[in-house]
């Protein structure tokens, strides 16, 4: 009976020799291959060629230098897009704040332009005329301004309420579409709540 070794072709032993060089041959297969190599000049010569090639590669091959400008490009392309708002509020709240910003512009314009040196007098019968440039004030600006107003004059919250009340009365004029009243009701809820997740706490 032929031994197991003789059933393998030299090519199989050469494949094993290649794997042996890579440290991927173990156990019985390794032992058997070593035995074969010891007595087969052809396979031994093949192994020698593999080894010389590997030595040459090890001596001469270096990893290429990656172009220096590559990382900044990747970093720039992978950066998440800047969100429009710096405050992480929900979409609905963001919308409400935008509406409130428009209201504030109207309110402030009426106060500072038309009544610059007097305490504002509110006439419930007089419709509110909205500013024609909604969206010009960003949310952060609006919040900062609102804070400033509230800290300067504690009755401003009443004035703000007046505006909201006016809106609720459906007396709305101007080129800006009237907000959804359900949303505005929600906005009151939001504006009276502390938002623990954000730096800014609304207390109207």
């Amino acid at each position, binding site marked *: 009976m032929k031994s197991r070794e003789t059933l393998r072709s030299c090519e199989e032993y050469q494949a094993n020799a290649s*794997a042996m060089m890579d440290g991927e041959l173990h156990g019985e297969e390794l032992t058997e291959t070593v035995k074969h190599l010891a007595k087969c000049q052809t396979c031994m010569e093949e192994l020698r060629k593999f080894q*010389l*090639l590997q030595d*040459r*590669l090890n001596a001469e*091959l*270096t990893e290429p230098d990656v172009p220096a400008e590559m990382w900044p490009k990747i970093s720039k392309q992978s950066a998440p897009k800047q969100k429009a708002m710096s405050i992480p509020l929900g979409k609905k709240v963001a919308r409400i704040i935008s509406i409130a910003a428009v209201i504030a512009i109207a309110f402030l314009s009426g106060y500072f332009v038309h009544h610059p040196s007097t305490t504002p007098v509110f006439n419930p019968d007089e419709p509110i005329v909205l500013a024609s440039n909604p969206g010009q004030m960003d949310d952060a600006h609006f919040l900062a301004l609102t804070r400033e107003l509230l800290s300067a004059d504690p009755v401003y919250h009443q004035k703000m309420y007046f505006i909201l009340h006016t809106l609720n009365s459906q007396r709305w004029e101007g080129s800006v579409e009237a907000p959804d009243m359900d949303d505005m009701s929600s906005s009151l809820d939001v504006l009276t709540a502390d938002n623990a997740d954000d730096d800014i706490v609304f207390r109207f």
Partner: protein
Amino acid sequence: MDWELIFRKHSPGVYQYLLTLSGNNQEAEDLLQETFIRAMRSISSLREPDKIHSWLMTIARNLFLDHRKKRMRQNTDSIEDSLTETVNQASGAESPEDFTIRSDFMSSLRVTLKNLSETYRTAFTLGVMQGLSYREVAEITGWSSATVKSNIFRARKKVADAMIEFQR
């Protein structure tokens, strides 16, 4: 995750692989860039962080194969005659004579690799040039362990035979 650190550590190996596969500096650079952008966007799919190198190589290989398919469809497929990045960047202090010898070896390697099929180029680059384990090669290529062993052997044999003049 410090992506800049990951890039510095792994990009040379990925770049070398792409250079060998594509044989074209510009294509390899574009694919390297795309590899990392894709990796950063799909990091959640990496289940074993210690296998990040294999994972990056897999992305690189898939991108290369997709890219090559597109090019073949456009009937413009031609392997450019340049592994120059791999070849020329074997730098260091050496005499002009040394450089000539080195250059001859690397030039010959470049031509040899260019004439191999993609399968053998991959096997040779990953298993022989980069010394990845057979398991890693299997993960990257999707080959069975027996196929990995066979492909590496055949690729090694082809290169060794083609470069016999340097085997002394």
